[in-house]
């Protein structure tokens, strides 16, 4: 897609510049650097600009009474500037020259039409009579005779190319409504003349050309608002005089009833042209526009209105348009990416649109506002329809309508429709992900859904919510009531996803989740579909129950006894087995608790809530944490396997937090005693182990140091290989 960026002013123009044909500047030519342009006005002055800095670098004028008749060009080889004033007087100067009167001067024998400078070649001088010379040939004998091919034809346009190191000059002439094209191959000194096929009731306004594969493609803008393509082969076989060139329609400059009256145009790439002209719609005042068209699909890609008017001239160098707009010379940077299927289906991330979509339009955030604005739009659309005004306008509104209307409608529907109907609409909505402000819209939709849920206890679009949260990057603040509702509905799966996904859950809600998870029975959970990814790798789901049973058999206790008799005579081994080796909670509950462990929190805010946790639940949680701690300490890396499994730091932090919150209770509670003592023993063992490791590390380092000292002998012969 092509796009126009915001424009900026390069410079103001004098009285000669301005609006309308015949005004403006003489020409704009590329300067010595890619960022430089040379501006020649219709008077006496030429200025060199650095475009990115919007700053003139140099300015040269001819004497009063003289007038520059041929645009100043830069000789890229020598970094000299060449100009012709008063048709015949050639001037050549350098950057450091100030006064044009004192620079090199050559008076020629014929009038010059234009000078063409090529990046790697000698500049070409085209005379009004059709003669062409390279600059060096001309300078050898300035007064040499210049032949005249075109006695009474007038040159309208000329362009030079370099094909295979060979300069080629093409120019168009006009005589009595007949147009001729000349192609001058310089090396071979061949001049071909072609006649342009006539077009009823219209004549060419502007030309442009490019050369590819030995074929010149000439594009020609006609006054009937069409661009025609004319192919001219470089190798001409038939030597007949005056071949007639046929043309083919490339582009019709009209879109939905309005017609673009082009005045000048430029080729951007093989599929895109830019046209400057006035867009005239039926029954409306014409507006000047800069437009980019796709010739492949015959579509208008983008346009920019120029309310202050232009001189009808357009130049395009290095991804920048230059044109006069009002009394200034304006530069607009454009982007023109070749259209591709990937872009069309949205697979190719377009830099500009992605930029736009990353900004949330806060105006659309509140659903009421959205509805209001939509309604007003609707009414406008209706009004416009009734009045039968602009067709294009209606079109655009019509295009907008289906997208936004559904959202607005949906928000209204959510309030009262049946859940099946809403679900259908929601599905439709989800399919349109490329919508602008999708995030914000979804936020509105969820809020509306939650509101409905609160009022209507039967309504709960669970699948939709799960799908939404899993798919997108949401936050708690975007839909604050969602988790509260999920807690109310005891939707464990949704809560798990929320805990895993939301970065900003308040500690209060985290605590509420924790409490619900701990209070709910494992049997209850077995029926819910909780994501077990975080526990599957370390809890043996199948054998969990079995193991407990075998243990009971071995020790001769039953489950209830175990639970109750923690305070009494309990051997250390069974303790360890109980608390350390088998998971005190079911895998579903473990997965949910892991989600809590994973969520972000701040201690100060969590601690007061955590104090409210019933003692039994606190002990259960601590037991689970203890289990996790022992499990994670089994491996040298002290990490648990699996995705989203809690890290050792998270486990330790929660354990400390829990003990802080419930320390007095824990100390008093008989069933916690065994757990605490085993925890204490385990931690002490760990501390001892690590201190031993530290000692070993110190010794190892010392050993290494000794080894190194041994190496540095006073004299040694060593083998050294340098690759």
């Amino acid at each position, binding site marked *: 897609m092509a796009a126009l960026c915001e424009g900026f002013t390069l410079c103001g123009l004098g009285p000669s510049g301005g609006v309308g044909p015949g005004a403006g500047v003489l020409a704009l030519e590329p300067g010595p650097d890619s960022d430089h342009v040379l501006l020649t006005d219709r008077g006496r002055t030429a200025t060199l600009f650095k475009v990115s800095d919007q700053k003139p670098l140099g300015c040269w004028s001819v004497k009063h009474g003289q007038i520059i008749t041929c645009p100043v060009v830069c000789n890229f080889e020598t970094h000299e500037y060449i100009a012709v004033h008063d048709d015949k007087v050639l001037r050549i100067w350098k950057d450091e020259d100030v006064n044009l009167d004192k620079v090199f001067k050559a008076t020629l024998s014929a009038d010059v039409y234009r000078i063409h400078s090529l990046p790697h070649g000698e500049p070409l001088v085209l005379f009004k009579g059709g003669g062409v010379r390279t600059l060096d040939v001309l300078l050898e004998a300035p007064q040499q005779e210049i032949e005249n091919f075109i006695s009474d034809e007038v040159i309208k346009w000329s362009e030079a190319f370099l094909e295979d190191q060979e300069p080629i000059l093409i120019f168009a002439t006009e005589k009595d409504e007949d147009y001729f094209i000349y192609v001058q191959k310089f090396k071979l000194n061949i001049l071909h003349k072609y006649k342009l096929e006539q077009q009823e009731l219209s004549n060419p306004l502007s030309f442009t050309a490019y050369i590819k594969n030995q074929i010149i493609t000439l594009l020609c803008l006609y006054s009937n608002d069409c661009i025609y393509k004319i192919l001219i082969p470089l190798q001409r076989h038939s030597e007949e005089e005056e071949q007639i060139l046929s043309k083919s329609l490339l582009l019709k400059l009209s879109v939905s009833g309005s017609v673009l009256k082009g005045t000048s145009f430029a080729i951007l790439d093989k599929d895109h042209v830019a046209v400057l002209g006035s867009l005239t719609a039926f029954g409306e005042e014409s507006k000047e526009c800069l437009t980019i068209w796709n010739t492949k699909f015959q579509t208008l890609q983008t346009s920019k209105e120029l309310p202050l008017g232009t001189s009808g001239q357009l130049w395009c160098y290095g991804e920048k348009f230059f044109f006069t707009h009002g009394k200034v010379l304006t530069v607009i940077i454009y982007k023109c990416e070749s259209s591709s299927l990937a872009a069309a289906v949205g697979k190719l991330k377009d830099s500009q649109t992605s930029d736009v979509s990353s900004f949330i339009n806060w105006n659309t955030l509140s659903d009421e506002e959205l509805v209001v604005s939509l309604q007003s739009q609707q009414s406008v659309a209706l009004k416009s329809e009734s009045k039968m005004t602009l067709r294009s306008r209606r079109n655009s509104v019509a295009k907008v309508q289906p997208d936004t209307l559904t959202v607005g409608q949906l928000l209204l529907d959510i309030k009262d429709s049946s859940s099946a109907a809403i679900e259908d609409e929601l599905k439709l909505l989800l399919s349109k992900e490329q919508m602008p402000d999708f995030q914000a819209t979804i936020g509105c939709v969820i809020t509306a859904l939650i509101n409905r849920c609160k009022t209507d206890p039967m309504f709960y679009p669970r699948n939709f919510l799960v799908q939404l949260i899993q798919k997108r990057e949401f936050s708690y603040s975007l839909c604050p009531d969602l988790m509260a509702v999920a807690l109310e509905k005891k939707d464990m799966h949704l809560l798990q996803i929320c805990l895993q996904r939301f970065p900003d859950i308040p500690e209060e809600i985290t605590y509420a989740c924790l409490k619900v998870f701990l209070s709910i029975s494992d049997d209850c959970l077995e029926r819910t579909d909780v994501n077990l990814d975080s526990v599957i790798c370390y809890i043996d789901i199948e054998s969990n129950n079995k193991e407990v049973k075998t243990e009971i058999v071995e020790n001769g206790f039953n489950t209830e006894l175990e639970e109750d008799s923690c305070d009494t005579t309990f051997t250390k081994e069974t303790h360890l087995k109980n608390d350390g080796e088998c998971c005190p909670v079911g895998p579903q509950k473990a997965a949910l608790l892991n989600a809590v462990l994973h969520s972000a929190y701040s201690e100060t805010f969590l601690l007061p809530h955590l104090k409210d946790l019933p003692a039994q639940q606190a002990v259960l949680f601590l037991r689970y944490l203890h289990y996790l701690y022992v499990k994670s300490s089994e491996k040298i890396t002290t990490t648990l396997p699996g995705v989203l499994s809690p890290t050792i730091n998270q486990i330790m932090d929660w354990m400390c937090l829990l003990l802080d919150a419930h320390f007095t209770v824990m100390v008093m509670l008989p069933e916690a005693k065994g757990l605490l003592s085993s925890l204490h023993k385990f931690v002490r063992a760990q501390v001892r182990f690590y201190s031993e490791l530290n000692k070993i590390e110190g010794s190892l380092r010392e050993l290494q140091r000794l080894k190194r000292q041994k190496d540095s002998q006073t*004299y*040694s*012969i060593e*083998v*050294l290989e340098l*690759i």
Partner: protein
Amino acid sequence: RLALARTDGAVEVYNFAANYFQEKAIPGHEARSVEALCWAAGDRLFGAGLGGDVCEYDLERLRVKRSADGFGGPIWSMAASSSGTQLAIGCEDGSVKLFRVVPDGVQFERSLDRQQGRILCLSWHPSETHIAAGSIDLLRVFDVSSGRTVQRIMVNYHVQKPKKRECVVWSVAFLSSGTVVSSDSFGRVQFWDWETGTLLESHTVSASAALALAVSEKEDSIVVGTSAGATYQFQLLPVKMGSQEKRWVRTKPFQHHTHDVRAVAHSPTALISGGLDAQLVIRPLMEKMQKKGYEAALRKFTFPHRRLVSCARKARLLLFQFSQHLELWRLGSTNESGKDGEVLPVCRMPEHLVQLKSKGPEHIYCSCVSPCGSWIAYSTASRFHLYRVQHEGDGVSIKKVTDVPKLLLPAYQLQCSADSGRLFVASDRGSVHVLQLLEPGGCKHLHTLRPPSGTPEAVYLLASSADGNWLAAASGDWEIHVYSLKRFKHHCTVPTYSCAVTALAIHPVTNNLVIAYSDQQLFEFSIPEKQYTAWSRTVQNCGLHRAWLERDSPITHIAFNPKKPSHILLHDVYMFCVLDKSLPLPDDSASLMNQSALKQLPETARKRQLHAFKICKKFQPLLFADLLDENCLVMVERPIMDIKTQLPPPIQQKKFGT
């Protein structure tokens, strides 16, 4: 430029513009200790010391130009007035004497009021009307025009009687505001108002003595060096943001030395300190740095930027140059081979063959051993010595060559030709003497080569070609002249480069002159074609690797492997490098030190990763490296620990846990 003096009387000049290259070095002298150095009257360098003389150094010919007696016993301090026309010296007998700087040295002008106690430090007021002088327990301010003491400040007046110890004022600075800054043996930096003699501020920076201080040119920053090896910066800062009232605040402590910081200097952008641990440290002030670059890094200089070891390749001997003696060693050998990293058993131990003591108080300027190992030459400031070494089996006998030609001395560099038949002596005014070494023990002056345009600077680097046809000489003005030895004629001049030459060598096969500059650039100049080689141009076009350019120390020696003409062997203090011209140059994205990475790669994958710089950092600090034969290199390391053991013990500092 920075001048520094070492305790053995040696004076060195570092050029800041040339990446802090140690551009000049004047060897020491037993009887000449330098206590104070100052630049005066433009670029003239004056020194004074405990010998009691004020001398001027000739920086072109690298020796003492003239000296004048101070007539006040040992001189402890010297200071130049701000205009550089007068020098004040502080003597053992308590007198402060003024000397005028005249075109041919210094002239005694007058003596200020004589007092008790040696004058340990001096400072001129910028207006040249007053001089502050520090002595034991007190500070004095003299009026220059009358010569009278106008203020006497007891620096430990307020210290209680029983605690009173002798307090030495080690350094003073006189600020234009009338404030006198002193640093003393109690570790205090004190600010005094000279007119009232009152203490304005006192900062205790250290438990040990604060030995040196220096003020920045703008007088907004002071650097203090202490005997604990730390330097501190004081800055004149507003009390509050935007407030007019300013106070001196101790801002930054730096601990770069292990021993006493004996001298400090304050450049506009850096704090410079020199210590008893033989190190010069340049610590840039980050707030003054505009951009990250060579100047913005901390620099430590421990080793001289010149070659002190010479190698007799054929005879496998090394000659070590010490300040007053030479040692000749035969290298050990092995008859085994091994893989990379292995240490081979030494079957023949290295042997100390000769120790030559230089007679007289002068230190050695330069020395060399011929490739065949049978000639040793060295030069001091006034004498040139040549010895013939006869190898008889395992033993050696040494005979002095008596009839050496009378040359203009000192010699700044000595170099033997590859066939050991000639000795090149670098001399002053850009000249090089060519001596012919005659069997069985004599020599003859053949010719003196001089640059066609003439230069006042002495030649300090020499390189001769293996075929004996060419000699390249670099002089102090950084010009390199190439002479033809066949015709004893000047051949060409290498285009001048804006940096100091640090090493020179001529390739034995191609006769290309390889030049290393102090900004770490490398050039290769074809002597036969009198132009830079294509490779050199490529290097300049592509630019060297950033890590190479940011290295710390200059290349001090270049050698070649005759069997592998594309290799150039280079070394500086921290690395040894084989530069393979046939391989592509690394770009900035590649790692310059890629040897360890390459070693882990399989043979096949190495090809793509190879680049021209094969760098080995295994041996540090590297004093010398040279190629003996095609698969034998000799490396001379000088461990810093070894140097430190010879130093006096530093002030004991309690470290945590010891």
